[in-house]
């Protein structure tokens, strides 16, 4: 009898920490592993772009315009004789930065607003969330078009527009996370021992809302990369000669009939990058959200 009891006891004691458990679940997910590998690869490529790319981002060779994929130029050359593979590799810096920066803008601004709304409630909540409702009533991409129109089409304004776009999105997620942990007893306890509101939010509320935020932020990076590329495709974002993938696609569109590779490969690059973020985001969600485990 004592053997069984000891075994049970040992099982209870060796309970994994949340991080260990999440990691264990995450690792079991093949998609998540593929996504992580892809992301590491893309990040390395972006960091080492000048080394990894066979040519510089703006090396023009007018003598070899519109070359189809070949041994010298694996993905072909464009209308100015630039190596497309090299431009895609250089462009990975732009797309990844756009994804991270815009998501960070949305996360920080939206997160703060959502945390304030959820934590304090009352009229602050009302004002902030009604404002978010209003912004959400305008379809996001179209709102970004309006902002870029007003601010002027360039890379910085593109990031601001897409970043602002993400604010209501994060505000809602964080508000509901905050609402769900606010009434927990340990938060009440922290209040009783005299912790300040700011301290409680930073120390207790945010860490507990961490899981949904991490998942949504990862998925959102993929979305913002597509939105930004779409705006650039319309000529409302990064302008040539920047090797932004959406802008490259837009340039390739003009030569679709004669140089299919110009439009094809930047699009595949976008797809692979977004796919990687989606795979990791899905993996994190499955690992972090015990409700969805089947």
């Amino acid at each position, binding site marked *: *009898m004592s*053997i*069984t*009891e000891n075994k*049970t006891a040992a099982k209870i004691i060796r309970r994994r920490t949340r991080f260990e458990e999440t990691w264990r679940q995450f690792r079991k997910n093949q998609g998540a592993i593929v996504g992580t590998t892809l992301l590491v690869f893309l990040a390395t490529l972006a960091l080492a772009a000048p080394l990894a790319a066979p040519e510089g981002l703006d090396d023009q060779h007018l003598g070899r315009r519109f070359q189809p994929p070949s041994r010298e130029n694996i993905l072909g050359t464009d209308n100015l004789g630039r190596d497309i593979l090299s431009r895609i590799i250089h462009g990975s810096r732009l797309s990844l930065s756009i994804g991270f920066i815009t998501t960070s803008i949305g996360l920080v601004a939206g997160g703060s607003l959502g945390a304030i709304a959820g934590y304090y409630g009352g009229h602050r909540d009302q004002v902030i969330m009604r404002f978010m409702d209003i912004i959400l009533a305008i379809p996001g991409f179209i709102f970004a078009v309006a902002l870029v129109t007003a601010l002027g089409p360039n890379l910085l304004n593109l990031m601001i527009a897409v970043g602002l776009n993400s604010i209501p999105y994060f505000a809602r997620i964080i508000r509901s996370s905050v609402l769900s942990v606010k009434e927990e007893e340990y938060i009440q306890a922290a209040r009783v021992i005299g912790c300040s509101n700011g301290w409680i939010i930073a120390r207790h509320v945010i860490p507990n809302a961490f899981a949904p935020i991490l998942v949504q932020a990862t998925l959102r990076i993929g979305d913002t990369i597509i939105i930004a590329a779409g705006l650039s495709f319309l000529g409302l974002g990064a302008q040539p000669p920047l090797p932004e993938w959406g802008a490259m696609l837009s340039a390739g569109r003009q030569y679709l009939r004669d140089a299919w590779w110009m439009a094809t490969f930047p699009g595949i690059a976008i797809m692979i990058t977004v796919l990687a973020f989606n795979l990791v985001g899905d993996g994190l969600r499955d690992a972090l959200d015990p409700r969805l485990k089947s």
Partner: protein
Amino acid sequence: MERPLLEVQDLHVHYKTDDGTARAVNGIDFSIHRGETLGLVGETGAGKTTTALALLGLVPHPPGKITGGRILFQGENLLEKSGKELRRLRGNRISIIFQDPMTSLNPLFPAGKQIAENLTLHQNLPPREALKKAGELLARVGIPASRSGNYPHEFSGGMKQRVVIAMALACNPALLIADEPTTALDVTIQAQILEILRDLKEDFGLSLLMISHDLGVVAEVADRVAVMYAGDIVETGSVGQVFEEPRHPYTIGLLNSLPDIDAPRGESLQPITGLMPDPMELPRGCSFAPRCPRVMPVCEEQKPPVFSPDQGRGVRCFLYHQTGGQP
């Protein structure tokens, strides 16, 4: 003696998961005669619900699988029947009531319609007639027929369980399986539901398999009792035999752990120490051996067979091998 309505012989059910095989039911035998009520008692996790699902051919597969045995219903082995043949029996000749009435009804359909569904399916009644009969069935379980158009969320828990009972009885089944039908309900409602079940059992002349962890419930409604522990039936007998003179150390422990209003003041309850073994790692011998106060060396080596110390009773315990029936 006529052949039992239901005979379960050496039934095995396993669940295969990533972490190993859980042996949920390990060779159980029992039978139910026409008009009889068998109480199946045991702790949570003893394999009672799996047994019930196996009778209906509803063990979720994967991961579950019936790995051996026979289930004879009216003399025919259900395990050899096709899916279609089984469906013709389910809800028609064999019905079930699940534990939680709050979640047993589809929230999007009116109660009457959910009852009528059985009738249109098994008795080919036209929809209107089926609905009318559904109303009659509701009245039979004490709900006005006029409420047949109400949705589940408009009923209380006890009333939902009545709806479920009406649904189970719609096609005059020969066997009703009630899996913890009162566990999720308040005590006063529990008594009402048991009362209804007992009445209807008489009216419909059905056999009842009453599954419960609550010895009181079983004592109240059952004719015979089977005690289940870690996938085995460790003791069977009439209600009087099992409750008055329990033989298996587990049954004895179970009864001792109940509060007794006639016990002398100050006497404390005697819980069984330890926990039920993990179904993934069942002991080689008797599965109760690790917790048994009267464990013998043989218990840890071999699984005990069934002994019959008295007429009409079986006990899976080596104690009765040694003494020929008297401990």
